[in-house]
């Protein structure tokens, strides 16, 4: 302002000439006060405006009847007054009142902290999703044939839509086990197997991981009949035989053949696996015993279905491992064409059924034969020497 003052002090032009030009307005000392007065006037105008606005607002509220709405009687006012005491919130509630309290569980009669009470009850009573899942998993991981009956809730929970890995696996298991438990095998095996095999037929819908047949307890006839319908591959861990069907995906045909040789002797029944060409694992077994031992060692990662979830995972690994081996060999072997037919017959008798089935199969059997050298099997190559 002072600057403008000095600027304009020289130019005293009559006001009429510059009505619209604010910047040309004369501003001297006395004008300053006028300016100030103007400022104050403007301010007063604004304040009055605000007051008037308020008056109109209040008047309208009064006439419309909502002006006194927020006023209740004295009692209510007192009731809802803001509380300002230490340790208490503005409503007068103590906010950590239940933190240190302990509750007695009606089930197990223990004193549990309040914040842990609900989860504890869930587990204690065996209700709720989590508790059934945990229970199922625990049961599944039992290697013993302890067929502890699960609660009704477990079944219900498993039928729920929210699958857990364990529940899903169990459902699949149940289905597959159901098919295997045909009446044929159940009777004869029942008395022989004692506590082990009885579970197979009796509770097809329960957790059948633990059902497997122990070959030691079976007589030869039973073994044979068993092996004609079931997979029968012996798990190295549990010495039990796989109770799944002949097409059980956990075991290969060569395993099945090996088991049959092992159990029934080299001249035993032929393996009805003609249609299992897809797996291309028709395994010719020359020296039953040594090969068997090797196979079993080989098979140990391929665990029987009776075992737990983790073992199933490892089964998958080993299953994937095998195909790699298979694939390698066909490339190298197709040149050796002629041996194919003969190779089929090399198998000591028991394989004849499978290998002689078709010439098409011979090509497949060739690669598989050659596969053996890749396995830790020095004796197998000796067979090939004989062939060649």
């Amino acid at each position, binding site marked *: *302002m002072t600057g*403008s003052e000095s600027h*304009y002090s020289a130019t005293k032009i009559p*006001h009429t000439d510059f*009505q*619209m030009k*604010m*910047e040309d*307005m004369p*501003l001297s000392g006395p004008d300053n006060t*006028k*300016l*100030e007065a*103007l*400022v*104050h*006037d*403007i*301010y*007063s105008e*604004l*304040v*009055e*405006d*605000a*007051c*008037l*606005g*308020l*008056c*109109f607002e*209040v*008047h309208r509220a*009064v006439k419309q009847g909502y*002006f*006194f709405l927020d006023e209740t009687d004295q009692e209510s006012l007192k009731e809802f007054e803001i509380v300002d005491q230490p340790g208490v919130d503005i409503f007068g509630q103590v906010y950590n009142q239940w933190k240190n309290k302990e509750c007695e569980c009606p089930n197990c009669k223990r004193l549990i902290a309040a914040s842990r009470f609900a989860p504890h009850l869930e587990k204690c009573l065996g209700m709720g999703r989590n508790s059934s899942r945990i229970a199922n998993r625990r049961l599944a991981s039992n290697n013993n044939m302890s067929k502890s009956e699960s609660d009704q809730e477990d079944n219900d929970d498993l039928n729920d839509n929210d699958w857990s890995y364990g529940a899903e696996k169990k459902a699949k298991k149940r289905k597959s086990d159901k098919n295997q438990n045909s009446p044929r095998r159940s009777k004869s095996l029942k008395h022989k197997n004692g506590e082990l095999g009885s579970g197979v037929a009796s509770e097809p819908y329960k957790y059948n991981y633990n059902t497997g047949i122990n070959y030691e307890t079976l007589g030869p006839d039973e073994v044979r009949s068993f092996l004609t319908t079931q997979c029968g591959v012996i798990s190295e861990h549990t010495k039990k035989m796989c109770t799944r069907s002949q097409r059980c995906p956990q075991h290969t045909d060569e395993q099945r053949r090996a088991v049959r040789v092992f159990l029934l002797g080299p001249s035993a029944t032929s393996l009805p696996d003609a249609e299992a060409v897809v797996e291309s694992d028709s395994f010719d077994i020359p020296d039953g015993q040594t090969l068997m031992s090797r196979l079993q060692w080989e098979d140990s990662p391929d665990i029987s279905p009776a075992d737990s979830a983790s073992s199933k995972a490892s089964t998958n690994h080993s299953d994937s491992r095998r195909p790699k081996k298979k694939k390698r060999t066909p490339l190298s072997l197709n040149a050796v064409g002629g041996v194919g037919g003969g190779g089929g017959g090399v198998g000591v008798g028991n394989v004849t059924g499978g290998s002689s089935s078709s010439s098409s199969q011979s090509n497949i059997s060739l690669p598989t034969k050659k596969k053996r050298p890749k396995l830790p099997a020095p004796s197998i190559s000796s067979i090939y020497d004989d062939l060649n």
Partner: protein
Amino acid sequence: MSKDTKMRATINQKLTEMGERERLKELLRAKLTECGWKDQMKAHCKEVIKEKGLEHVTVEDLVVEITPKGRALVPDSVKKELLHRIRAFLAQHAS
């Protein structure tokens, strides 16, 4: 002094044209509500209404009662800020 009058008129006109007047109004209202002036005045209104009777109170009654008190009760900080802004506006646009 007509010079003054003219000047005033001009300034007022400019204030309104540029929207500064509205802005100042809003600023003032907000500040007054913030500082509790409005609640204070409302309480005073209640007294007036109770005094005059709910049915018969008029705008004039309220205005007469409220305005002087309202003017007086504006806090100094609010007043100062507003004056400052007005002066600034004038300085920018008037001289």
